[in-house]
């Protein structure tokens, strides 16, 4: 009896352990060769995911390749994606950022499929400047994502009512902000609760101050990040806060709250990116303008950057199907579709003459078309070009400046230290 109890218990324990060991998900690299997994970041608007599914269905119908669409919140994307890729259970194609802190880290670990030959084979017309952002060690490891600009949205109706003209320089902006503040409205709905907005605030002030050459110099390490220009750019936001141009506590204001303030007419300006144009069009009943953050001596320039684009897992055994899908994502038809449905602009030429877009978005399309034009330069969005360590220091630093925990010089020093890591 005891022996049988012993055996039964041992067998049960063994079965339990065996069962526990057998519950892992099957690898994605096996199975149907005409089926691939495509992972994207969860869009803010759930309807956008349905639209994408419908659009992908067209590809499936034409190619005979089945695409399993998956979406993850941005916050989980990095952890989950890296874990999946390392375990060999990653998606075949996924949408991911192109900076060194994003695709660069994956490329360094050999987790991305080398698409250099595919560029030649398919002759994708990606802008050269954009290709540089996905080139690591001479290899093209993905397709750069949509083009975005960062600037100031402003309530044209409110400006007109208060007799304010569109700011042409920093002094104009300050004068406008004072008029708006005195009228009892928040001049600039700057938010920084989440922290990442700080990178955009610094990007726009710094880009307009030193231009793309100055930004290049900083990003290449030729100019230190504790230089006077960086300190001055940080100080602009500190001064704006102390002058009452910003909400009372920007670090308490979430991104959504700031947007709501602008939509509701409780704030006259909103510093953010072109990705919000769809939301602005849907939520406002007043006319909206979009300008670069002004420089001291002129209108300044938009900060521009690239969002997430498609990449292929190095562990995928369905690279032919994956490449065919990426080719679809780089097609003129898909580019036109993203402009009209997603409000995003691909990093390759798309005929937008007959595109059905709002005037505000048409302006952004025109602005971003200059990204590849050295005669009409745009500034940079810093956080897609720098490492995670630097970005964290930048986000914390802008919060520290706005809350008075640190002064601009201290934050700039921290930026330089983080840049050198």
């Amino acid at each position, binding site marked *: 009896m*005891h*022996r049988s*109890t*012993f055996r*039964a*218990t*041992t067998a*049960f*324990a063994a079965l*339990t*352990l065996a069962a*526990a060991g057998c519950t892992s998900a099957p690898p994605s690299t096996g199975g149907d060769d005409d089926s691939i997994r495509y992972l994207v970041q969860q869009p803010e608007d759930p309807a956008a995911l349905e639209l994408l599914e419908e659009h992908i269905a067209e590809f499936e119908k034409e190619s005979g390749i089945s695409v399993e669409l998956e979406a993850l919140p941005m916050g989980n994307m*990095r*952890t989950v994606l*890296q*874990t999946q890729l*390392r375990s060999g259970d990653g998606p075949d194609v996924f949408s991911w950022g192109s900076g060194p802190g994003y695709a660069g*880290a*994956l490329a*360094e*670990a050999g*987790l991305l499929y080398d698409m250099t030959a595919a560029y030649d084979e398919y002759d994708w017309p990606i802008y050269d400047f954009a290709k540089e952002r996905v080139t690591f060690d001479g290899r093209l490891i993905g397709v750069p994502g949509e083009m975005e600009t960062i600037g100031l949205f402003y309530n044209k109706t409110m400006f007109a009512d208060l007799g304010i003209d569109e700011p042409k320089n920093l002094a104009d902006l300050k004068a406008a902000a004072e008029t708006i503040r005195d009228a009892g409205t928040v001049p600039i709905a700057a938010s*920084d*609760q*989440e*922290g990442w907005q700080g990178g955009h605030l610094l990007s726009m002030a710094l880009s307009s101050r030193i231009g793309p050459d100055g930004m290049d110099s900083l990003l290449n390490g030729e100019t230190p990040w504790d230089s006077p220009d960086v300190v001055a750019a940080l100080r602009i936001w500190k001064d704006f806060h102390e002058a009452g141009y910003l*909400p*009372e*506590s*920007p*670090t*308490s*204001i*979430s991104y959504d*709250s700031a947007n*709501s*303030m602008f939509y509701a007419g*409780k704030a006259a300006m909103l510093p953010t990116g072109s990705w919000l144009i769809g939301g602005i069009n849907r939520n406002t009943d007043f006319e909206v303008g979009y300008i670069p953050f002004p420089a001291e001596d002129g209108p300044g320039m938009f900060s521009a950057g690239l969002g997430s684009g498609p990449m292929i897992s190095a562990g995928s055994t369905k690279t032919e199907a994956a490449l065919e899908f990426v080719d679809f994502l780089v097609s003129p038809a898909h580019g036109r579709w993203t402009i009209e449905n997603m409000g995003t602009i691909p990093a390759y030429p798309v005929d937008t003459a007959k595109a059905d877009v709002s005037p505000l978005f048409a302006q952004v399309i025109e602005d971003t078309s200059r990204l590849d034009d050295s005669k009409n330069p745009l500034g940079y969005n810093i956080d897609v070009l720098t490492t*995670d*360590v630097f970005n*964290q220091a930048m986000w*914390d*630093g802008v*919060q*520290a400046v*706005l*809350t008075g*925990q*640190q002064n601009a010089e201290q934050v700039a020093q921290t930026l330089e230290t983080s840049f050198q890591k």
Partner: protein
Amino acid sequence: MSRATTAPTSHTRRTAAPVRSGRPRAGRLRSGAVRSGQPRATRRAQTRLGIALTIPLMAMIVTFFLVPLGSAVYYALVDFNGINPQPPFVGADNFVELFGDPKVWAALKNNAIWIVLGTAAPLAIGLGLALLMWAVRRGSIFYRVAFFFPYVLPQVAIGVVWGWIYDPVRGWLNQALETVGLGSLATGWLGNPDTALYAVLGTAVWATTGFVFIIFLSALRNVDMELVEASRLDGTNPFQRLWHIILPQIMPVFLMVTTITLIGGFSVFDIIFIMTGGGPAGATEVLGTYAYSSAFQLNRISYGTALALVITVLAVPFAVGLNRLQRRLSLQGTGA
């Protein structure tokens, strides 16, 4: 207990040696001969049964405790960035670095504030509420459910809702302060480095107090009322009764609750992560959130793991000490 351990079988009756009174001596038991009142076959069977019964538990301990612990120690001794499959061995470098990292000390200070206030406040408020509700019979179920309800809510939901309450634009806390003429106190609670930690702590206290209240209320039901009445007749005031009569009787429960809330102070993560993410600029950073951001936002898995091990090492002495004290008081017969 199985039959084999309580009644001898026919086989044991034939072979059993005379049973000595008193404790068997360990040295003789190790010799291998028949030393107890049970034959070798029975003892073997008991041994096998004992092993069989402990295997599942041991398997769970190994799988869910020892292997993760060993894995954590390994990762703390290498430099793993979350991607490199063969991280270099760095020995104690991660631990050396964290002792010189000013952010660790700032986080530890916030942990200390959290441990002190986050333990004392729920204990004081929970005990006060329990004492108030002690004699209440009518509607007591309603009050118990009402006070306990926050404890069963997901921390994520609590964090999100309280984030709305503290919101300087749409939150009702500032609006309420304005309404009652205390508008000067209105601030951006979660974005102001002077108030952010305490605002999150207030939320945590709100969520924890119900648990403490319910446990204390249950313990108070077992307090000897004759002692309380006798002390009342002797002229004690309420504080004296609480200190000298009631608290000693519920002390093991008090220590158990203290242990749970105090250890929670070391490992606090979710409510802070949801409400402030450790910001603004690290003002609400604790060791848990710093370990997370190091590991998963900065890809310093090894450094984050080293921090997590430090949290464990800091918490264990408190847990063990309080547990021993609780056991000693229980053995002394003190408490509810």
